[in-house]
C-alpha cells in the first residue's frame, strides 16, 4: 500500500462519501450517523497520513505515482510529496476530524450533504498538495472551491449568499488566469508534468523568454495571491470567514489559504525564479502593507470572527514576506508559519464558534467577563491567543522570528532592514488587537446574560487538545518539523537565488521560445 499511499489518502474521503450516500438509502438510517462515518473516515485518513512523515526528508519527491491520465494531451496522474507538501498534507488531515467534531451539535440541517461536502473538500485539498501534474493540480484547486462554496452558502451566517458568491467569483477569476498560464506552459513544454518542466528548465533545454516568464508569473501569482490573500486582494476573506460555519472557517483559514502560499512557493518560485526575483520587491511591499493593514483592521472590528479573519491577512503577509526573502531562514520560517497559522487560527475560529453556538452573537460588546462562567474556555482561549501573538516557546514565535531574520538578511530587496522593522511592528499590533479583544471578551465584569453560559464540554476540550499541544510542541521543539522541509526548501531557494544566467532563461535568444506560435 505504501507506494499508493497518496492515492489512498485522496480516495479515502471519497469512499466515505460513497458510504454516506449509500447509507442514506438504508431504511433505518439515522441522521446523526453521518458525522460518525465522517469522523471515522477522516481520523483514519489522518492516521494513514502520518505514514508519510517517516519517508520524507530529502529534496526529492517521495511516494511518487506517475501513470498516464489523459494520454491525448499528455496529462498524467502524477503524485508525490516532499518536505514542502508533507506537513501541509498532515495539517489538512489533522484539521478535518477536528472540523467534523466542531460541527457535532451545531449542524442540524442537511447533515448528509454537509459531511459529504466536507469529505469532498478533504480529497480536493490533499490532491492540491500532492499533485505534480499542472492540470491535475488545477483540477483539485478548482474542486476545492465547490464544496466550500456550498458550505458557506448553505450552512453559513446571515449574509452567507453574498459571502459565498464573493468567495467563488474572486477565487475563480484568479484560477482561470492560472489555467491560461498552465495551457501556455503546455504549449511551450509539451507537458503538464511539473517535474518534467522543472527538469527541462534546469537542464536549459527549453527556456522561457523574459516576456513569457513575466506573463506566466503574473497569471500564477494572481491566482495564488487571491488565495493567500495578499493585500489588496483580501476582501473576500473577512466575509467568507465570518459567514462560514465554524468548520468552514477552520478549514478555510487552516488549509485553503495555504494553497495560495504553497502555490507561490512551488510554482512561482520554482518555475519562474527570474521573475520571482524581479517581482520580489512588489510582493514584499504588499506583504508588509498586508501585515500592518490587516492588523490595524483587526483591531477595530466589532465582530470577533472578523477580527480573527483580518488577523489572518496580517499573518499570511508574514508568510509571503518570508517566501520572497529568498533566504533559508525566511522560506523555512514561511513554511513553518503556514503550519502555525493553520494550528493557531484554526483554534481561534473554534473558540469563536463555541461562544457563537452558546450566544448566537459574535459581537465583542455582547461578551465580557467570560472568565467567571467559563474558566476552561477562557484559559485555553488565552493560551491560543498567546500563540497567535507569537509568544516565545509557542509555535507562532518560531515562524515569525525566522521570517523576520530572513527578511533582515535578504538580498532580494534593497534596505531589507526597513522592511523588517515595519514587519516587526506587526508583532506589536498582534498584541494590541488580541489582548484588547481578550480584555473585552474574557475579562472584566460578567454580563448577566453570559453568567449562566456552560463551560466547554469534554468533546470541545478534546477537539482543541491536539491543537493546543501542537502549539507548545512546535514552539519548543521545532527542529523535527524544520529538518524535514529543509532540503526541499533549500532546493527551491537555490534555484531562485542563483544568478540571472542560472535561472529559467538565458540571454541566448536562439534557444528562447516565445509564447506566441
Amino acid at each position, binding site marked *: 500500500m505504501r507506494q499508493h499511499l497518496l492515492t489512498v489518502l485522496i480516495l479515502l474521503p471519497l469512499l466515505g462519501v460513497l458510504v454516506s450516500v449509500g447509507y442514506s438509502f438504508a431504511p433505518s438510517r439515522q441522521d446523526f450517523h453521518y458525522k460518525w462515518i465522517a469522523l471515522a473516515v477522516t481520523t483514519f485518513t489522518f492516521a494513514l497520513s502520518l505514514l508519510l512523515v517517516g519517508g520524507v526528508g530529502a529534496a526529492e519527491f517521495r511516494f511518487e505515482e506517475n501513470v498516464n491520465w489523459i494520454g491525448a494531451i499528455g496529462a498524467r496522474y502524477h503524485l508525490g510529496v516532499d518536505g514542502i507538501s508533507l506537513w501541509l498534507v498532515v495539517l489538512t488531515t489533522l484539521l478535518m476530524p477536528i472540523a467534523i467534531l466542531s460541527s457535532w451539535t451545531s449542524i442540524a440541517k442537511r447533515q448528509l450533504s454537509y459531511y459529504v461536502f466536507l469529505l469532498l473538500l478533504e480529497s480536493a485539498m490533499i490532491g492540491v498538495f500532492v499533485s505534480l501534474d499542472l492540470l491535475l493540480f488545477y483540477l483539485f484547486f478548482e474542486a476545492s472551491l465547490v464544496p466550500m462554496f456550498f458550505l458557506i452558502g448553505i450552512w453559513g451566517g446571515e449574509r452567507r449568499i453574498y459571502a459565498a458568491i464573493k468567495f467563488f467569483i474572486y477565487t475563480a477569476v484568479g484560477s482561470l488566469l492560472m489555467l491560461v498560464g498552465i495551457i501556455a506552459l503546455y504549449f511551450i513544454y509539451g507537458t503538464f508534468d511539473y517535474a518534467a518542466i522543472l527538469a527541462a528548465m534546469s537542464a536549459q533545454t527549453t527556456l522561457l523568454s523574459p516576456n513569457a516568464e513575466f506573463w506566466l508569473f503574473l497569471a500564477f501569482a494572481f491566482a495564488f495571491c487571491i488565495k493567500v490573500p495578499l493585500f489588496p486582494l483580501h476582501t473576500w476573506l473577512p466575509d467568507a470567514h465570518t459567514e462560514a460555519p465554524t468548520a468552514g472557517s477552520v478549514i478555510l483559514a487552516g488549509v485553503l489559504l495555504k494553497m495560495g502560499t504553497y502555490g507561490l512557493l512551488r510554482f512561482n518560485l520554482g518555475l519562474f525564479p527570474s521573475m520571482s526575483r524581479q517581482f520580489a520587491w512588489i510582493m514584499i511591499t504588499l506583504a508588509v502593507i498586508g501585515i500592518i493593514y490587516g492588523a490595524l483592521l483587526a483591531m477595530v472590528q466589532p465582530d470577533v470572527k472578523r477580527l480573527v479573519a483580518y488577523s489572518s491577512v496580517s499573518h499570511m503577509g508574514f508568510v509571503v514576506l518570508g517566501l520572497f526573502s529568498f533566504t533559508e531562514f525566511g522560506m523555512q520560517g514561511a513554511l513553518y508559519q503556514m503550519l502555525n497559522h493553520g494550528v493557531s487560527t484554526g483554534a481561534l475560529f473554534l473558540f469563536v464558534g463555541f461562544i457563537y453556538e452558546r450566544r448566537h452573537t459574535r459581537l465583542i460588546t455582547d461578551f465580557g467577563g467570560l*472568565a467567571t462562567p467559563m474558566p476552561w474556555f477562557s484559559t485555553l482561549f488565552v493560551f491560543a491567543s498567546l500563540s497567535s501573538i507569537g*509568544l516565545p516557546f509557542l509555535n507562532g514565535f518560531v515562524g515569525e522570528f525566522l521570517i523576520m531574520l530572513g527578511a*533582515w538578511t535578504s538580498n532580494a530587496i534593497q534596505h531589507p532592514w526597513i522592511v523588517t522593522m515595519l514587519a*516587526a511592528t506587526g*508583532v506589536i499590533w498582534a498584541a494590541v488587537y488580541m489582548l484588547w479583544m481578550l480584555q473585552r471578551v474574557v475579562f472584566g465584569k460578567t454580563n448577566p446574560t453570559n453568567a449562566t453560559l456552560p463551560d466547554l464540554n469534554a468533546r470541545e476540550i478534546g477537539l482543541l487538545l491536539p491543537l493546543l499541544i501542537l502549539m507548545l510542541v512546535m514552539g519548543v521543539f521545532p527542529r523535527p518539523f524544520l529538518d524535514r522541509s529543509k532540503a526541499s526548501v533549500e532546493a527551491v531557494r537555490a534555484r531562485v537565488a542563483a544568478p540571472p544566467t542560472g535561472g529559467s532563461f538565458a540571454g541566448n535568444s536562439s534557444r528562447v521560445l516565445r509564447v506566441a506560435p
Partner: protein
Amino acid sequence: MENNLLSFIIFAPLAGAVINWFVGRRLRNEKIIGFIACASVGISTIIAFYLALKSNGALRSTESIFDHLWTWIQVGRFRADFALAMDRLSGTYALFVTFVGFMIHLFAVGYMHGDRGFYRFFAFLNLFMFAMLTLILADNFLLMFVGWEGVGLCSYLLIGYYTDRKEAGNAAKKAFITNRVGDWGFVLGLMLVFYLTGSISFFEKPEHGVISALQAFAGMGVDPFTWKSLFAGGATSVAVLLFIGAVGKSAQIPLYVWLPDAMAGPTPVSALIHAATMVTAGVYMIVRCSAIYTHAPTAMFIVAVIGAATAIFAATIGLAQNDIKKVLAYSTVSQLGYMFLACGVGAFAAAIFHVITHAFFKALLFLGSGSVIHGMHHEQDMRRMGGLRKYMPITFATMLTGWLAISGIPIFAGFFSKDEILWKTWSAGEFSLPSPLWSKALWFVGAITALLTAVYMTRMMIMTFWGSERFREQDVDHQLEGDAAPAPHSVHEPHESPWVMTVPLIALAVLSTVGGFIGVPYALGSLFSDHPVSYIDQVLEPVLSHVPAGVPHSERAHAVDEMQWLSPKPQQLDGAPAVHALEGPAASAERAHSPEEIRQERFLAMVSVLIAALGIGVGWLIFQKRPLLQMPRILENKYYVDEIYDATIIKPIEVVSREGLWKLFDVGVIDGFLHSLGDAVTEGGRMVRHLQGGFVRSYAAIILIGALALIGLFAYFGAHTLGLAR
C-alpha cells in the same frame, strides 16, 4: 564546566507552577499550595547559592558553569540553543533574584490568604520565577528573549489577576503592549547582532562550535561618537535597538507609563516583578552586553541621558501621589533611571550594585506597604492612614530601614550604591559624553533626584505612620476632593500582619541595612581599613567591558564621513584598533585610587549625605505639620502624559484604522471597486440583452448591418492589406 544542576534552578519553579495549576486547582488547600510554591523557589535558591558560592563556583572562579539542554532552533547558520550559563554576572543576579523571590513567595502566602484564586496566583508567580531565571541564565540572546517575553506574560497575567476589575485588565494590557513596543527593539537588535557576528551566543562554546557574539563585538573598532552612527548598522545601532527593549521592560521615558498602572496587581507582585526583579532586566541586559555598549559611545550617551531624565522626572511625580503603591512605583522608575545613568557612564558594576540594594530595600518597602494595606483591609490611599506605627510596630520598624536606605543615609545599603553611581557620573570620562560639563550636569540631576527621593519617601512615611489616625474619620472622604473612588468607607482597626509576612520583612530589613557593605568603595573603605575590598567590583570586574580610556573625539571624527546609512559592515569603517574586553581593568582601578580622586570622592559622599539629610529634614518640616498638603496638580496628574499619549497616538491610530482604513478604504474603495466592476458586467449584459429580442426582423437587420460593415472594411483597406491575397 558543565553542571546539570543548573537547569534545576529554572525547572523547579516551572514544576511548581505546573503542579499548582493542575493539582492545586483541585486541592484548594492553601497550606499545600503555598508549600509547593515556596519549596520550588526554595530549591532554586539553594541550588543557585550552591553553584555560585561553592569552592569552584561561578562567583569564585573565572570559568562559567554551562548546561546545554537542546538545540532549540537551527536553520542554516542560525542556531539558538536552549542552554544555560552561570558566570559571575548571572550568578550574582541569580542569587538575589532567588532569595528575594523566595522571601516574597513566603510573604504572599500570608498576603493572599483567603483569596479565591490562590492556586492560580502561585502558579503564575512560580511561572514568573521560571521566566526570570531563564532570562538571567540564558546563554544566548534568543533564550534571553524567551525569558524576556515570559516575564512580560507573567506580569500581564498577574497585573490582571483580579480579572473582574476593569482597571486591572487595562493596566495588564497596557503593560504587555508597552513591553511589546520595547521587544520590537530587542528582536531587531538581536537580528542585527546575528547579522554582524553570525552568532547570538554570549559565550564561546567550542565543543558546540558556537562563537561568542559579544567577543566578536569586543574585537571590532569603536564606533565614532556621532548621531550618524545610530543608523550605520554597527555596534551603536545594536546598542540602541537593545536599549529600546530595556526602555520598555525597565520603564524608562518614554515607555514608563505602564509601571505605575501595574500597581493594580496584588502587592507581592509589585514587590517581586515591578520592583525587585523583572524591571531590572533591562539593566541586566545592558550590563551583559557591555562589550557592545563600550563600542557605542552614542548609545551610551543616550542611555545616560534617558536614565537621568527618567530619574528626576519620576521623582517629581512621586512627590505628589497619594496612593502608597503609586509613590513606590514612581520611586522605582526613578531608581531604575539611576541604574541606566550608571550604565550610560560606563559604571556597569555600580549599576548592578544598585540593582541589588534596590531589590532589597524596594522589595522591603513594597512588602511593607503590602503589610500596611493588608492591615488596613485593602486601603491604599495614604490620606486615609496615619499613625499606624502604634498598630504595626514590626512593619513600621522594617519600613524605617527601607526609608533610610532609599534616602541614602550612610551605613544603609542604598547609600553606598547610589553614592557609587553619583561618583562615577561625576568622574566619567569623555568617552560617552560630549563634553566634561555633561558629567557634572548629570551628577547634578542625580543629586537633585536624591534630594527629591528623600523628600517624597519622608512624605510617604509621615502620611502612613505618623500624624493623626485618619482612618477613623468618617468624613475624610468629603475632604478629599477629586477622589476617584469614594467607596463607602468603613472603619477597621488596623492590625499587625502574621509571621509569614513579618519574617520576610525582617530579613529584607537586615539586608537593606547591611547589604551595602558588599560594595564599599575604596575611598570610604580606606578610612577604616588598610586594604578595603569592594566585593561586588571584585566579582564583576572580570566579566565587564570597560570604556576605553579617553579616546579624543577628534581622532575618531574622520570616520564619520565614510559612514553610510545602515551600511552593512561598519566595523571596517573605523580605523581604530580593536578594543578588547578585558583590556586593563587593573590600570583603571589603579588610577581610581589617586589621592586627588579619593579626596574628591569622599567630598562627594559627604555632599550626598548632606543631601539625604536635607531631603529628610525638608520633608519632615513640611509634612509633619500638614500631611495632607495639596501638591501641585500637574504632578498629581503625572504631567498628563497618559492623556497626551492617548490623544496623540492611541486615538488617532484607532480612528484612522476604523474610519479611514476599514470603512473608507477596505469597504468603500476596494469592495466598492469590485462591486462596481460586477455592476458594470451586469449592466453591460442588460444592454447587450436587447440585441436578442427574439424578433427575426431585428436579427435580419443586424446581419445586414454586419455584412455591410464587412464589405465596407474590405473595400476600404483592400484585400492586400489584410493579407488575404498574395
